[in-house]
């Protein structure tokens, strides 16, 4: 994976920071631009969830693993907050942390044996973990509500310094979801830029070599998996309070699959990939909703075409354009030189 080195990147970094700044400003102003259109707000919330999921899954990918347990951990977060809210009446502001803690605990415990496996074997083992979590929710009908799931998980209210925010309003929830997604993206970005992130990539590139220079590979694998699953669980908590009902099907394998599609279409090299992929594909998905099954077919075609013809994903488009422009300029220069001689 081509990762940008830190040398001669100052100018590029500045451009990147400006672009990110514009994106953040646009996202925060979106409710005013869209005149608080409820449907648009809904899409925005959906996008935020997908961005958070794809970005956290990408964090596992920086180690070279594809995890299909993501939807399951999202379910742990969602069910924790739902049960605490419905049985004890606790607000999401406490529950989300309990859910994150629980998911982190489960993830770190399960990743110890899980990380013994590699490549396809890991893929299957994580799939099994996700599926077992989902089926456990379905099995205990008394406690988890079985396939019918849990209902009436109301959106939270917040009273803070005399300020009363009711999150049953779409705009308020939009801000909640967007701020959360930004937080996840920012944290993953920071992790990726840190020493730890570099170690993740070194394990991706050459695990045995990493081990031989004294990196405790297992520890970093467990760390990445736990952090990513914690983010997934927090997304799940927000998801539950937004949709107000959850059932095991909300945390189906498809959720993980779509997160993976977002990453692949967006690009694998930097954190911009999952963000781009999740945003663009969610928008396309909503726009094509009336098309029914053709929408899914189109998704498949887009996915295959991306892999075959643009393996770098959407994030590689600027680089491609630049490379193309460079080549054109060179050809032109070369051509004129030939003409003069």
């Amino acid at each position: 994976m081509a990762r940008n080195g830190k040398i001669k990147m100052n100018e590029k970094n500045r451009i990147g920071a400006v672009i990110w700044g514009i994106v953040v400003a646009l996202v925060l102003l979106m409710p005013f631009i869209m005149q608080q259109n409820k449907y648009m707000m809904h899409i925005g919330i959906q996008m935020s969830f997908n961005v958070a999921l794809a970005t956290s899954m990408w964090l596992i990918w920086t180690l070279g693993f594809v995890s299909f347990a993501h939807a399951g951990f999202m379910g742990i977060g969602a069910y924790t907050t739902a049960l605490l809210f419905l049985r004890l009446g606790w607000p999401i502001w406490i529950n989300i942390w309990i859910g994150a803690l629980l998911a982190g605990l489960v993830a770190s415990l399960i990743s110890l044996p899980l990380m013994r496996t590699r490549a396809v074997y890991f893929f299957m083992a994580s799939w099994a973990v996700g599926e077992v979590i989902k089926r456990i929710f379905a099995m205990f009908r008394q406690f988890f509500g079985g396939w019918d799931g849990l209902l009436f998980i109301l959106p939270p209210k917040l009273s803070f310094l005399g300020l009363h925010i009711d999150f049953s309003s779409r705009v308020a929830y939009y801000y909640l979801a967007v701020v959360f997604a930004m937080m996840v993206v920012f944290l993953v970005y920071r992790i990726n830029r840190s020493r730890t992130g570099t170690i993740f990539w070194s394990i991706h590139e050459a695990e045995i070599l990493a081990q031989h220079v004294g990196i405790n590979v297992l520890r970093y694998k467990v760390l990445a998996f736990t952090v990513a699953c914690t983010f997934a669980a927090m997304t799940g908590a927000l998801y539950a309070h937004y949709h107000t009902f959850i059932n095991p099907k909300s945390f189906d394998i498809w959720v993980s699959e779509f997160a993976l599609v977002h990453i692949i279409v967006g690009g694998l090299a930097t954190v911009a990939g999952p963000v781009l992929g999740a945003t663009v594909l969610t928008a396309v998905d909503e726009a094509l909703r009336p098309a029914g099954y053709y929408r899914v077919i189109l998704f498949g075609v887009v996915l295959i075409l991306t892999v075959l013809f643009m393996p770098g994903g959407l994030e590689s488009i600027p680089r491609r354009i630049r490379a193309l422009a460079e080549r054109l300029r060179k050809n032109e220069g070369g051509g004129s030189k030939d003409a003069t001689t």
Partner: protein
Amino acid sequence: MTGLFAQIAVTGITIGFLYALIAIGLTLIFGIMRTIQYAHGEFYMLGAYCLFYWFKFLGWPYWLGVLASAVIVFSFGVVVQLLLFRPLHGKSMLYSLAVSMGLIFIISSGGLLTFGTVVRGIPKFIAGGTRIFGAFIAYERIVISAVSALLVLGLWIFLQKTKTGMAMRAVSQDPDTASLQGINTRRIHWIGFGLGSALSAVAGCMMGTLMSIIPTMGFMATMKAFMIVIMGGLGSILGALIGAFLIGFIDSFVTTLATAEIAYIMGFAAVFIILVFKPAGLFGQEWED
């Protein structure tokens, strides 16, 4: 009581053989091409629908229909391999996973559009049954199990005795050395992919006869096939056979005595536990990527 257990055991054997066909198809593809074929179950679904339309439009004999379905899906598999999987050969497994995921979207939604969302059935080829140890066994199940066993045996002989079969084993053991020995690995790739898909299609035909068919049935088969293949170890036919019977028996015993939910959890738990103790499956080779 013995009747019940005998009945469950018979069901387990029939299901086990059909799972084995799907899983051996997948393990062939895995072993030879080293790519993830996540859309394997879709070929199983296509096989079943080929047989359904064979009856609907032609109404010719059953086994001829199974053969036709195998041939059609074989060709389709070869086309898919040449167009989509060949360019990805040697790249990260993520790409083949993505392409086959795209195939799932296309084939299963395309199936829902063209075949309709209704559950359908394939007519039985033989009626009646017999009683053994108090268990009622339909002749259909006996024939299906026998045919599956023969197919597995035939494949085994093919891999052991024929030149192409030996080339396939060589490629799955060590692609580089195999191609140094003058084996045309590209040819082996498409033959292997087609053969694997055809096996899955035959399983689809017979499962469709025993139960019902619907365009979304493919994913379940993919799931079972992956569980079995990973459990047995990639590329290992013996492993796939053992895994298939393990999953088949878990399915039939636990589903009858408890619930389908618990059967699922137990199946996945079995896969997980085996992977914890043997990270490369029961008979698998370690797969670096």
